[in-house]
């Protein structure tokens, strides 16, 4: 069956095929007359080679290549992911930086406002204190003045009494005279 197929194949190829005729029964072989033994050995040797190569050569080589390609792809994917992560981190940091800057400005503004307020408060307080002190001083001065006036008046009364006593020691008792003078003096004081 196979041989007839081979013969058909050969026959188709050799359009002018005197070789076949020559090779028929004679031991001589034409260039186009396939030898069965060689075909047998070709099948055997090629089959063995195919089996061994595909099992022990091509499979490990191709799997090594695929492993390397996979590793390369993985590395590329990883690098891409890393790059995306880095970009994300950068954006985040930028945002944080912006936020920090805004915060700082706010803090500065607040500080400035607080300082302003504190200064104003202090100024106000100082002014009030000054005012109070002034008032107190005024009051004290007034009180001292009143005290001094009263003292002076008392001194004057005493002096007057002493003077008057020297003048009229004899006829007038102290109490009646003192009352009289006091009455007089107070009338002066009220006027």
């Amino acid at each position, binding site marked *: 069956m196979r041989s007839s197929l081979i013969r058909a194949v*050969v026959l188709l190829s050799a359009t002018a095929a005197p070789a076949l005729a020559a090779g028929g029964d*004679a031991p*001589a*072989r034409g260039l186009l007359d396939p030898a069965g033994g060689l075909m*047998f*050995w070709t099948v055997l040797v090629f089959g063995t080679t195919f089996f061994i190569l595909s099992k022990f*050569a091509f499979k490990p*080589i*191709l799997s090594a290549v695929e492993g390397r390609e996979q*590793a390369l792809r993985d590395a590329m994917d990883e690098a891409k992911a890393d790059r995306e992560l880095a970009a994300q981190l950068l954006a985040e940091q930028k945002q944080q930086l912006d936020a920090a800057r805004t915060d700082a400005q706010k803090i500065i503004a607040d500080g400035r406002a607080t300082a302003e307020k504190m200064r104003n408060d202090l100024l106000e307080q100082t002014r009030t204190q000054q005012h109070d002190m002034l008032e107190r001083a005024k009051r004290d001065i007034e009180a001292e003045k009143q005290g001094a006036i009263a003292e002076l008046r008392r001194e004057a009364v005493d002096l007057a009494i002493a003077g008057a006593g020297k003048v009229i020691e004899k006829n007038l008792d102290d109490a009646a005279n003192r009352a009289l003078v006091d009455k007089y003096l107070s009338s002066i004081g009220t006027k």
Partner: protein
Amino acid sequence: MKSGFLRLVLAALCAAAPLAAQEHAPAPQAPAADSAALHAATAGDEAGAQKTAGAESTAKKDIITPHITDGNALELPSLNPDHGFATHFALPTGWPKFHIGSFEVDTSPTKLTVMLWISAAILIFLMVSAARAHQRRAAQGLPPKGLAGAMEAMILYMRNEVILPNVGHHGEAFVPYLLSIFFFILTANLLGLVPYMGTATGNIAVTATLALVTFLVIEIAGMRALGKGYLGTIIYWPHDMPLYMRIPISLIISPVELMSKFIKPTALAIRLFANMTAGHIVVLALIGLVFTFQSYLIAPAPLAMAVAIMLLELMVAFLQAFIFTLLSSVFIGLVRESHH
């Protein structure tokens, strides 16, 4: 005499003439010469060159035919110039024979059988050691270097640029087979360029077998990809035509479709065989010119040409392995994609 060479080359290139006989062949049975073209084409050694050109001389020695055909002896290097710096090592005969129909299969090793063994051994050794190197380097997380790197470059080129684009979707299953075909043919081709060796891929039996295996792979790929639709690749049945047109078209096209199935692997086999054989014939014919002219003075020119042809052969060795693989991929892709 010279025209004899031309005729020989022409005949071999056309792949039509029987270049069967080898008169002084190392083979135990000396086959009889049966064609006038062969006698005219025989290259002269000292004995042959004494005769006049064109004579029906049996004393002439054919150096080309034994070289391009199979034999029952290996040629090994020797320092003895009387035997052409070669000793012949007879291979064992009488290994089991069996018959497939009327087709006799003699499993006794021949020269090209041994060449197949050698090339397979070299290939397996190189590839498996490359794979080992790959695993060793991959364990360290490094790319391969040296031979393993070169092998990887070839494997990846064939897989990514030739096989996968042509086989089509889910083509990974065919990668090991097509890579094996490529490297097997390449090794055998290159081994044929080594002195004292033979070109296994320059024999129709080898190329026809490889083509036959490829044929089976193509058709099984078609059956698996198309299922019942595989019949559509044999019987052409155009659905978009009226019935009265379909039948005659089908009757005409179906035989063509069927023939194309067989012509494809045939072309593969003949292409590889003819390319590998032709180069060797040209080289031998050029070297034969030195003996034909019986002069050392003429020698540099044919030798320079022979060197040039050998360099060309080096390229052809790669090219033919590549083309065989490329076309196999294309054929597998074609049958898997065909929806009638």
